[in-house]
């Protein structure tokens, strides 16, 4: 009697075809991730669509500056006699767009560098990673301060600086996640087939580091928001008197005891936004740790 003719049980009871659960799907089972997503959606919604709901214009004068109770306003006026609520509704777009743009840029470069380093190892790896280390030695905020002061607070410059200082961090994480993948045999199998290097990076390595990358991207987004807010706080606005959450905190900080809303509202907005992305990052990292553990068990 042949052993092979026993029907495989899996064939007898066909399982539904499904992709292996992605990190995001697993993470979404956690409350923290859900709360994070809800926060993010709300804040992004405010940032993108808030201006359409603002009772006043971004730079409209409504009354005595730094006053809590002004007729026609919900939360009073800011340092320049503008409606705090309207300013807050206007002030998220730029910070969000800048943060997303710079993180995306950093992601592109960081992932490319990290994957190339992980795949090639040897000298190229050394050179790439050392230069990443070196660029990490330059404090992020310091670089931003110097560059913005010398060149001026241009949006592209803010994006460039945040991206440049974020890239090495993403590159390191990508490399770290990709090195074990490079050692997995399916990469060898692809090499044996003679697949091109770019294809191997793109279709063999990248999909398999997406978990840690997603975590890192979220984390970096969180920090980018914080950094861009800090730049606003330090007075770097891209447009004169533009509404910007970070800048608002700075502009109205002095009146904290008189008219707290001017500071508190944007600060809460920044905090909720970063807490949101942070919670998602946290959920994702827990999920990907769990998935990795499950893999390790096999």
């Amino acid at each position, binding site marked *: 009697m042949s052993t092979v003719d026993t029907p495989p049980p899996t064939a007898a009871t066909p399982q539904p075809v499904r992709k292996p659960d992605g990190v995001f799907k697993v993470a979404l089972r956690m409350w923290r991730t859900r709360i994070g997503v809800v926060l993010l959606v709300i804040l992004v919604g405010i940032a993108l669509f808030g201006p359409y709901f603002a009772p006043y214009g971004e730079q409209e004068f409504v009354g005595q500056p730094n006053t809590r109770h002004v007729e026609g306003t919900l939360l009073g006026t800011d340092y320049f006699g503008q409606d705090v609520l309207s300013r807050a509704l206007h002030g998220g777009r730029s910070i969000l767009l800048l943060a997303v743009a710079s993180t995306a840029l950093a992601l592109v470069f960081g992932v490319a560098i990290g994957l190339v380093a992980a795949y090639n190892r040897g000298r190229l790896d050394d050179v790439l990673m050392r230069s990443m280390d070196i660029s990490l030695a330059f404090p992020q905020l310091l670089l931003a301060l110097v560059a913005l002061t010398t060149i001026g607070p241009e949006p592209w410059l803010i994006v460039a600086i945040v991206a440049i200082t974020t890239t090495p961090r993403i590159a390191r994480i990508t490399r770290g996640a990709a090195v074990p993948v490079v050692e997995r045999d399916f990469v060898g199998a692809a090499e044996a087939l003679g697949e091109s290097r770019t294809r191997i990076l793109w279709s063999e390595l990248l999909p398999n580091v997406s978990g840690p990358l997603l975590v890192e991207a979220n984390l970096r987004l969180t920090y980018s928001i914080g950094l861009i807010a800090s730049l606003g706080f330090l007075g770097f606005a891209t447009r004169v008197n533009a509404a910007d959450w970070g800048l608002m905190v700075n502009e109205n900080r002095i009146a904290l005891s008189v008219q707290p809303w001017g500071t508190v509202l944007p600060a809460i907005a920044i905090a909720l936004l970063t807490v949101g992305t*942070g919670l998602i990052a946290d959920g994702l990292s827990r999920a990907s740790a769990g998935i990795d553990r499950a893999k390790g068990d096999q």
Partner: protein
Amino acid sequence: MGILKLVLRRLALGVLTLFVVSLAVFLLSQALPSDPARAVLGREATEENVAAFRAQYGLDQPMIKQYTTWIKGLLSGEPGVSYSNGEPIMDFLGDRIKNSLFLMFMGSLISIPLSLLIGSYAALRRDKTFDNANSVSSLILAAMPEFVLGAFLVVLFATNVWNIFPATIRIRPGEPPWSDMKGMILPLLTLTLAVTPYVSRVVRASMIEVLESDYVEMGRLKGLPERTVLWRHAMPNAIGPTFQVMALNVAYMAGGVVVVESLFNFPGIGLAMRDAVRDVNIPVVQFLAMFISFIYVITNLAADIGTILVTPRLRTRLS
């Protein structure tokens, strides 16, 4: 022997790092669109004044010459003179460097043990109440920029709600940084609250890895008391990554001092940096950028060496 060689290698890398940073700093300051002479002397300066200024600070020299002069100055401990008052940089930054280092030292002294404690405890009580509470609260704290955090602490403890702690610190010139410990409280609290959540998360992660290791399970299976398992078997292995964490911590603080110092009027390098950037005081900006990078490189070096010393696998491989 081996350790010495390794230290030398890391040192060489550190020097290389600083060299590249120095190039970057120098080139960046050359890229300045506005003429520093003009910026410093202001709108009433005459052409002669500007020329005299440029000659005085060697700005009329070729770039290579300026760079080598600067580097030589840095190496000989005379990093040049401030544009704003012609004073040697070290004269007016000396005390500030001491103050900032003291602030960072005190901050580390509090936040490192605290992060270790919180991180380890959260790892031990993984997914229990403490861990969850800590993870959420640290997330929120970490999400708040220092400037928001500090401003609220001031309102809470110094001005509007309770007037318990001084709102600003006052270290008088010539006095040691510990002369106003009461004023130190809020700056330290801000730094600690800003740094600890981040660092304790790293500690938690590395501690969890250790706690899930086979050798910790083996320790339990050997019938060792939990105390021994934790302190003797888990801790020494969690210490290595912790050194990296400490370096992170210090690096983070080196950046964070700019904000904290301006919040509490702390006479340190962060404030000096801010002033110098604002005043286009290039020699001071250059020096401070180099100094902060230097701190970063040194702490990383120390962390690397520390990690090697506490990790037998690495330590013995060298000999």
